[in-house]
């Protein structure tokens, strides 16, 4: 290393943070050991940097600056938190207002229950939409005639399914009458399961038995067990309906 290189490194190198590579540092040290001029410059540069550095850092920090910063920080945090709280409150108020308006609109739009109107239509029976079609599909699935051999009012349908009868699952369709106190149970009896010729009248009090015409193609007999005097309360009032 010559004097030019040594001067270059002397002005750039800083012990610690920006120390030169070890081989450069070693070369510089060797040069300084043999060159009194550069060695003196190294001492002067180091002294100058030390003096300027010391003066650079000699700034008196005002007493109370920390407290001022902390107070300012608290104020800023408070402002931020307040802004956030206002935003949340505004959103909550908007939501509350919207809910209130919705509830008000809903409340205002609800109809008043009219007992007179209900009384006038009390004898109307609600019909289950598609009840007849559902029974028809189910009967078909069971391998039975699709239609019951009497004009039952499917608006009076209670249920359909199978019922265990003397150890056998028997398809049954159940209706109630319009008053809601009478019941008619229509059983589909297959000749393979029961002796149809010997069906006896019901012995139970209040119940009647009626055997409907047999389906000739399948031999299935429909037997109706019902309360009351006749099947009329379970049938369509308008047979054409």
């Amino acid at each position: 290393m010559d004097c030019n290189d040594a001067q270059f490194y002397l002005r750039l190198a800083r012990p610690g943070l920006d120390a030169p590579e070890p081989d450069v540092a070693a070369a510089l040290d060797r040069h300084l050991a043999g060159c009194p001029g550069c060695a003196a410059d190294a001492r002067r540069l180091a002294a100058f940097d030390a003096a300027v550095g010391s003066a650079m850092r000699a700034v008196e920090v005002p007493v109370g600056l920390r407290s001022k910063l902390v107070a300012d920080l608290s104020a800023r945090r408070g402002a931020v938190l307040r802004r956030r709280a206002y935003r949340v409150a505004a959103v909550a108020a908007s939501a509350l207002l919207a809910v209130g308006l919705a509830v008000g609109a809903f409340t205002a739009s609800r109809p008043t229950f009219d007992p007179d109107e209900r009384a006038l239509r009390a004898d109307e029976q609600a019909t289950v939409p598609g009840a007849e079609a559902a029974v028809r599909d189910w009967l078909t699935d069971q391998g039975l005639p699709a239609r019951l051999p009497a004009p039952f009012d499917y608006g009076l349908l209670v249920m359909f399914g199978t019922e265990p009868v003397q150890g056998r699952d028997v398809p049954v369709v159940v209706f109630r009458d319009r008053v809601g106190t009478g019941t008619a149970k229509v059983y589909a009896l297959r000749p393979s399961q029961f002796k149809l010729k010997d069906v006896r009248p019901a012995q139970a009090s209040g119940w009647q038995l009626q055997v409907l015409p047999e389906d000739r193609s399948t031999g299935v007999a429909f037997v109706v067990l019902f309360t009351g005097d006749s099947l009329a309360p379970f049938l369509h009032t308008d047979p054409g309906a």
Partner: protein
Amino acid sequence: MASAGGLHGLIDAHYEALYRYAYRLAGSAADAEDLTQEAFGKAIARLPQLRDPDKAKGWLFRILRNAYLHRVRDQKRHRAVPLDAVGELPGRPEDDPPEVDPARLQQALDDLDEAFRTPLILFYFEDFSYRDIAEQMDLPIGTVMSRLARGKAYLRSRLAPSGAAAGNGAAGGPRRAGNGL
């Protein structure tokens, strides 16, 4: 938002260094105080951006410098030494390095362009390597080293005892610059 404890810790750890930096950049206690306050205020808002707490100091210094530059731009202050007036390479150092008066140093810094002043301040704060300074200023490291060399030459001429640098040819450039302000 970070906890108040975390922010207080940030203040405790860095407010003195930040104030000193602000003072050397701005040249007055009032501006330094305002800048320190502004830097911490901005830091609070941007705290989620600070991913590595070990880099908090550099991050705060950078925020402060940006705040300072913003103010300088607003105030349209132009009082710097022209860059061309600052010597490229310093000559032989003085035999007896001067006892540097902090106020005189500040005068010299005030007259220096910010592009030279900032690396000098960071360099003499001793906590910042060339690489750190380059990152602070978004400059190539070679540019930082060059500016430091020229800035130090300028300081040597400005801080030299009267007449001591007169016979030093290489220091003549910076001295002229100082006299020309």
